[in-house]
Structure formats: C-alpha cells, structure tokens
C-alpha cells in the first residue's frame, strides 16, 4: 500500500464553553491516500467542519495531530487549501484578482501568474467573467471561482467545507459534477465535508460517517461506483442507503441513551 498523503492521528478538539468543556471532536484516526476523494458526512454539530479546520491548520488540535506526507502540520499552508461554505471570495477584487491572490502571496512572476490564472478560470468556464466583481456573480459561479482560487495553487490536499450547502438543488448537482470532473482531470487528493448524504455518495471513494458530540467516526464506507457518477447509479443509491442506516442507528442509540440518563 502506498503511504498516506494525509493522516489524522488520535485527533481531538475541545472548546472552552461558558459552563463546561465542549468536546467537538474526539479520537479521530483517518488515513487518506494520494489522489483519493474522501467525503465526510454527518449531522450538524458532529465536528466535521472542525476536523477540516484542524487539517487546514486554521485551528489547533487539543489532542493528537495531523500529518502530511509523514510530517506533522503546524499552522495554515497553501498545500492544504480550503473552499469555504460561502466561498469567502474577496469583494474588493474581481474574479481574476481572486484567483490570482494565492499566487501573488507566493511571489509567482507576473507572466506565469497571468497564464495560470487564465488556465484555471477557463477550467471552471468563467472566461467571460474574468473581470466581473464578486457581487455580480451567482452562487454557483462564486463557488466556481472559489474552486479555481484553490486549485490554481496546486495544493497537495483540497479541503471543501460544505461548499454547496447554500446552493439550490439544480446548481448543487451541477457543481457536484464540476467537482467530480475537475478531480478526474487533476487527481487532487480531496477531503469534502457535507451534511448531505446523497452528495457524499456521489463524490466519495470513501465515505466517512461521523456522529454527534463528541464528534467521532462511526463508520467508513467504500464506494466503488464507476465515474463519472450520477445520483441514480445503483452503487451510489446503495451507498446512500448504507450511510442512512448508520446515521439512523446512531440517532436511535443516542435517543435511548438520553432516556436512560437520570
């Protein structure tokens, strides 16, 4: 087996809440192979976004650690780029300026920068909107820009934090196929967080099902449906079924625990 590109080891995160300590994440172990597409699915509050922030280095774990190619991660870096839920595009820059941002920070020369920016704007099919401002774009277009802005940096791992949660159903499905297509072409190792079981089944080679407080992994499903996939492929439907079963069982279990508690 090839070495894991990304490794989470006994990873945990506690937040200091007003009254008690809040366990957002506890004892998460996960290995993600080079070029793999892994989805993390779970109800809100299960710590899946926290997990992504720890991998990105934007938050510091209170237990365990994150490894990239065998090296522990300290702080944020352009090798692990996040696509945020609302895109987090910069409204004072146009599309081109947003895609160019990370390359400027990295000090890439102007000619090379321009060429790469053009290439990636074309890849998300926004050539006509290179000089549009962020407020002139639709929700789906914004997430295309966010994708281009992340991929142009050629990250080792692409981290996506419920990127399509705010989109309407049709746009969401369209964006899922855009992501799938980009991944098939670039082969970028991807960690994709969502609360949508169907989305996780369409996209993931492996589906990590997480459950409630303290956030922990309850199952990892393999999903070998051939690509490109759609929501109606039998193997995808099967993966959806299996994920739902696990999530339902977890809810029933935690409800019974609540009844037992004094």
């Amino acid at each position, binding site marked *: 087996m090839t070495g894991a590109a990304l490794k989470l080891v006994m990873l945990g995160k506690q937040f200091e809440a007003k009254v008690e300590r809040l366990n957002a994440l506890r004892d998460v172990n996960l290995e993600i192979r080079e070029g793999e597409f892994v989805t993390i699915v779970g109800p809100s509050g299960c710590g899946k976004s926290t997990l992504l922030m720890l991998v*990105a280095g*934007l938050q510091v774990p209170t237990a365990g650690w994150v490894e990239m190619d065998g090296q522990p991660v300290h702080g*944020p*870096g*352009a090798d*692990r*780029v*996040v696509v*945020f839920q*609302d895109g*987090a595009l*910069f*409204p*004072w*820059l146009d599309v081109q300026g947003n895609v160019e*941002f*990370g390359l*400027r*920070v*990295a000090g890439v020369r102007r000619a090379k920068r321009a060429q790469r920016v053009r290439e990636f704007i074309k890849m998300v099919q926004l050539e*006509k*909107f290179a000089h*549009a*401002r*962020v*407020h*002139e774009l639709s929700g789906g277009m914004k997430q295309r820009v966010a994708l281009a*802005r992340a991929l142009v*940096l050629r990250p080792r791992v692409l981290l996506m934090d419920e990127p399509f949660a705010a989109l309407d159903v049709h746009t969401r499905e369209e964006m899922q196929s855009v992501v799938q297509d980009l991944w098939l072409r670039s082969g970028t190792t991807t960690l994709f967080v969502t609360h949508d079981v169907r989305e996780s089944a369409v996209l993931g080679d492996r589906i990590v099902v997480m459950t409630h407080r303290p956030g922990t992994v309850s199952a990892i499903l393999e999903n070998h449906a051939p690509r490109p996939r759609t929501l109606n492929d039998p193997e995808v439907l099967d993966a959806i079924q299996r994920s739902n079963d696990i999530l339902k069982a977890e809810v029933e279990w935690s409800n019974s625990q609540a009844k037992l508690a004094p």
Partner: protein
Amino acid sequence: MMRRREHSLAWEFRHLIPMVAIALAALTLWQAMVSLRVWPPYLFAGPTEAVRALVELWNRALLPRAIVATLQRLAVGFLISLVLGALLAFIMVRFTTFGKALQPYILGLQTFPSIAWVPLALIWFGFSETTLLFVTIIGSVFGVSISFADALRTVPPVYLQAARNMGSDGMDLILRVTVPAALPHLISAAKVGWAFAWRSLIGAEIIFASVGIGFLLNIRATVPDIGGVMGVMLVILVIGIVVDQLAFSKIQEWASRRRGLLAHR
C-alpha cells in the same frame, strides 16, 4: 455582467438641484430677516453685505492668504493625524487586551475639547506654526484612531482565514486583506477625523495666529465688521461642505460601488 450606463452631465448632477434649492431658500430667509429689520444692521448683516465684505477682503488679498494658510495647516496636520491614528488603531486591534484597556482613555481624550490644549501648546511651542499643527493633530488623532480601530474590527474573520489559508500572514495579510476589506469604513473614519481636525484648527486660529481663516474671523470682530464676520463664517461653512461632498463622499461612493454595496443607478 452589469455595466453602468453613461449619463448626461445634467443627470450626474441632478442630486444637486434640491441642494441648491435649499441654499436659495436659506439665503432668502436670511435676506428677509434683514429686510424686516429684526435686528439693527450693525448686529446683523445680510447676504449682500456679507458678500460685499468678502469681495473687499479678497481684493485686499486677506481672504485668499487666509484660506491658503489654513488649508495648508489642515492638510499637513490631518495627514500626520491619519498616520499616527492608523498606527494607534493598528496597535489597539493587534493587541486585543491592551487595546481594550486603552480604548476608554482614548475615548476620553477624543471628547477632550481641543481648544483646551492651546494653553499647554503655547507654553511648549510659543506663538508658532507648531502650536497650530499640534492642536490640529491632537484634536483629531484620537477620534481617527478610535474610528480606524472600529473599521478594522469590521473585517469578517472568514476573509482573514481564507487569506491565511492561502499563505498570507503578517504585514502581507494586513495590506492585502485587512485594509482593502475595511476600506469603506476606513474612509468614513477619515471623514470623522477631518471634521475633528478642521474644528480644532479654526478654534486655535481664533485664539492666536498671524494669518488664517480663524484669525481673519477674529480680526473682523474687533474692527468691528459684522459683514466680514458673517462672510468669513460662511466661508468656513462652504469649505466644510465642499470637502465633504467633493472629496469624501465621492471616494466613499466609489469604494462602495466597486464591491456592490450601493445599488446601481
């Protein structure tokens, strides 16, 4: 993609029509009070008398010299105040705990009447340009730093996260993200600062100066020349409006429209 339509000059300035109407109404009211002889002419001059006095002051080169001197002081003082205020604001935002502890004192200094600095400044710097500059700066720098700090705090954390995530940090992060993200608020903050600086300077010039608008106003009162006094007051008002409308409002509108905070006309 939306493109702004080109408009005729008349359309561009159409918002000026009600403004001009209000100015004319005020002038009419002013003239009416004079014509009705509510107060004797040596206590209350009409617009024609004020303008006549201004023309005379202009012809004697007193008015242009005063305006140039005052605006020069204002430009230098206000610029220094912006730089110092930005530094102070940056320290307050960067070092959160220290900044919070410092804030009430700076707020206190902001409300401190700038004229009350004049005696101290006179002892330190004598009857000099330095004194006038000092009062202009000290009268505005605290207001500037408080407003700048507030502006910097409006930056949504997700922008900073996204930028750090793409490898930006330190000075790079401040210049590439914090400042542009806060720009519309920073411009409002500068506007607040300019008003503070303007008031402080005119106040100080009234107390002492050898040339300047405040000085001219004071001299006209000792003549006494009621037309000159009211005329110079009018000049102070007009400069305030012009700077606000031509400089700050335009810059603010531009910055807001660029990021879609204003509806397209």
